[in-house]
């Protein structure tokens, strides 16, 4: 009878980082979008 390998258990960072990191990713991502909008406005105004 073949022995089956147990399914790998999902890894997680400690709870504080699990909560904070997605928030940080989202906030900085939004900031990048805002900055790109500003740059587009500035470029549009230059032409």
């Amino acid at each position: 009878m073949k022995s089956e390998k147990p399914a790998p258990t999902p890894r997680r960072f400690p709870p504080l980082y699990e909560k904070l990191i997605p928030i940080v990713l989202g906030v900085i991502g939004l900031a990048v979008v805002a900055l790109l909008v500003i740059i587009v406005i500035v470029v549009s105004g230059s032409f």
Partner: protein
Amino acid sequence: MSITHTILPFSSSVLSFVFAFLILKRYWAKRGLHQLLWGIGMIFYGIGGFCEAFYGIAGWNPLIFRLWYLFGAILVAAWLGQGTVYLLVKPRWAHALMAVLAVASVYGAVRVFTAQLDPSLMTSSLHTGAELSGHAIVTPGVRSLTPFFNLYGTLTLVGGALYSMWLFWRKRILLHRVLGNALIAFGAILPAFGGAFSRFGVPNALYICELLGAIFIFAGYLRAITPMKNAPQVVETSGA
């Protein structure tokens, strides 16, 4: 002469040069092109801060202005971002982008050093003239170069840091690199906002954001290359 217009940019400059030295020392040992580009980028950052401090202490100088605008306003973000490109993108594409950046940088240098300047234009309804401002450039088309370089720098440096952060977080590995890239992304975006706020007339925004940006990028780099000593252990959870 105020602290904001002298000590802040001077501190930013010193920190940038120290950071550049550390990165280039690491490049010398490991020969990663990304480290070379980051080191060059941080030298540009330092030159920009030095020119700002010089202006705050000694007043207008056309050479200092041109150096500030070229290195601090146009090139720094793009060259830092190019370092990240070498880290994340296949070498053939990275070299191609580097060639484009090099040609564009030479073009930018020619335009800046041949531009007509009028320092009185730095004092406008939105600006006091206490900070360096691209408004001193009279020749049309020079200032419009900046957003393209900054756009490339933002997408590559900040975007690259966010992408790296997401990659490591998705796999739940190398927590120190997740945190380091978060600090780098935040630090990289600060000067860009400072420049934008300055362009819209918010006083002192540029110099404050530049110093904070340098601090966060430096801290992020140190965090990213240093595994955490008492690393929080990855928690294995059951599949159920």
